[in-house]
């Protein structure tokens, strides 16, 4: 298992490599061996950044950084790793979106735009990968207790949770349960789907 992050120093129970996901050359350099490795079974694109802000007060540089990291980063990772899955003849790609897309959360328009792009990309890419036995799906969590929402006020988190079908804040293991299902052989007929953690 190989993880990709902004720095290779992140603590993880697997090998961590550093790359700038917005730079395809950086991604290619970090994962050159992975692209050729038929042992690779899955790609999980969970990297994401957000900036809670009104569109009208968000600097252009911030907008660009969010779109590049969340959307282009996902696309570049798929470009780099999908050949390994094609060589293998099967595999799984799981891209992360957000509950913010169906809920249209105020103050997250740029983040939502980037993740809506991920969803559209993933659905079309699923068709492209289908002949090779590779499924592409989307997991869209609500507010999980991670660094991504560390600065989001509690009342805003609660307001989002109240809009979920299951009105409790999901835990990381709830997300993992869905990822685990999509990674399993039993999910071979699921592709191009978005699964909202907690229901939207």
């Amino acid at each position, binding site marked *: 298992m190989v993880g990709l992050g902004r720095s290779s120093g992140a603590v993880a129970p697997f090998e961590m490599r550093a790359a700038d996901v917005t730079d*395809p050359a950086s991604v*290619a350099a970090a994962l050159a061996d992975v692209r*050729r490795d038929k042992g690779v079974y899955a790609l999980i694109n969970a990297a994401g950044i957000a900036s809670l802000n009104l569109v009208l007060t968000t600097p252009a540089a911030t907008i660009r950084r969010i779109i590049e990291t969340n959307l282009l980063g996902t696309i570049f990772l798929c*470009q780099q790793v999908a*050949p390994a899955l*094609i*060589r293998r003849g099967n595999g799984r790609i799981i891209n992360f979106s957000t509950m913010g897309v169906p809920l249209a959360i105020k103050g997250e328009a740029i983040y939502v735009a980037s993740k809506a792009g991920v969803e559209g990309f993933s659905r079309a890419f699923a068709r*492209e990968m289908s*002949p*090779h036995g590779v499924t592409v799906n989307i997991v869209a969590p609500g507010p999980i207790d991670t660094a991504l929402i560390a600065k989001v006020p509690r009342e805003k988190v609660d307001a989002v949770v109240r809009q979920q079908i299951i009105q409790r804040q999901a835990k990381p293991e709830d997300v993992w349960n869905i990822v685990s299902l999509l990674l399993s052989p039993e999910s071979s007929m699921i592709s191009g789907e978005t699964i909202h953690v907690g229901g939207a």
Partner: protein
Amino acid sequence: MSVSYEEVERFLRDEVASLTAGPPENVSGATVLVGTSRVVDSADLVMLLLAAEEYARDKMNVAFDWTSDSAMSEARSTLRNIGTLARHLTDLQPA
């Protein structure tokens, strides 16, 4: 020692024949890879490019990055037929 255009083209012809399950003699340098007259579908084209990527690395000691700006800016001509792809791969080698 560099790999000749003829060797690269022969490799590509064999790959296309294998992908299309047709007789090799029906495949030539003029065999079309993209467009309305193509003989491979998009999935087979990906498989061909993957095979070409491995061949370039293992036999020619060059990197064939088919997503690079330089390769894809002329994608229509590079991928037009087996001959143009063979020429592109051959030209990747240092003179």
